[in-house]
């Protein structure tokens, strides 16, 4: 397993009372994404625990794209991954944001 962390800055803070959201399942070729508000001084922090080692650059590329689409701040994203493809990761991240922002405050 490998643990990766990334931080992004320059996003718009989300309402701190928003309920956390979870999408996906920790199963082969899949991942779960937990997204929740957090006091991070304007950062969007991503923490990944992945069964597949050595894909740090790929994760960074997928997350760069994600942050371009969703400029979030004061948000923590936690991921448990079992070798999902970049396309599946991007899909789950988008679903997580949709659930998170679409759900009740």
């Amino acid at each position, binding site marked *: *397993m490998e643990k990766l962390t990334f931080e992004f800055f320059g996003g718009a803070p989300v309402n701190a009372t928003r309920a*956390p959201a*979870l999408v996906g*399942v*920790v*199963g082969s070729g*899949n991942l*779960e994404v*937990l997204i*929740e508000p957090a006091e991070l001084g304007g950062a969007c922090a991503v923490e990944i*625990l*992945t*069964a597949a080692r050595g894909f740090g650059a790929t994760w960074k590329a997928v997350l760069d794209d994600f942050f371009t689409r969703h400029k979030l701040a004061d948000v923590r994203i*936690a991921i*448990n*991954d*079992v070798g999902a493809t970049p396309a599946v990761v991007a899909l789950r991240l988008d679903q997580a944001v949709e659930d998170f922002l679409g759900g009740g405050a």
Partner: protein
Amino acid sequence: MSSYYEASARERLHALFDRGSFHEFLPPSERVVSPHLVQLDTPAAFDDGVIVGRATLDGRPVLVAAQEGGFMGGAVGEVHGAKLVGLLERARDEKPAAVLLLVESGGVRLHEANAGLIGVSEIMRAVLALRSEGVPVVVLDGGQFGCFGGMGIVARLCDAIVMSEEGRLGLSGPEVIETTCGVEEFDSRDRALVWRTVGGKHRYLLGEADAIVADDISAFRAAAIHLLDTKPDLSLEALTAEHERLGARIEKFGALRDALDIWSALGVEKPENLPLLEADAFRAAVDGKRA
């Protein structure tokens, strides 16, 4: 139609209970994960593969749990088991209309085998203690991974079971039997054989499943509502009657080799046609023939 089989545990919970009524205890943001998996370099899940909480069903308060088969086959580890036990004990305090268990599990999680086995034993005791206090426990079984191992025993400890044809219920899974005893004992790749041996239709015909429904979350919901008023009965009379039924089953069917033989012995005409029937047609075809 919304497939129960294809849905995740979370999707099932949100679609099955009254809209917006589900509230989770120890949600993923609490990160109550299995420390044992991480020790073995295996990814953990934030809910440890089981979601527990409260909801209303047709306006009535219920406590609910849903196992996620996609995570380690829904297998029971220390945290997973403790969440189920805590929910069942909470029901002893709160006395909801019922507890609903959306089971999907291969049984004990081998990465934490001892903790899982003991956890299943505690779930068994907790179900029995709860039923002894008059709160019914209803099982829904229609997920991709079925309900096997210790959870198969747990399911049969409960008041009622709702299954789809796709649901499976047993103790040792077909793969386990094939691996241990050989393919001639149980060919786990013979899907027709697997489904007629451990699938919903056979369980319904034996009288183990109380309802058989189409693979549709709303059908599971309707069946669960119907079973909310089940009254737990662990009296000597009830268990003596169960004992007689189980004894008769061994006597009548104990020498038969295949589900088709059992269905035939039950008086079903053309038993070979049963696997082809949709839930409604199936129920009609076996009306009055169940053991």
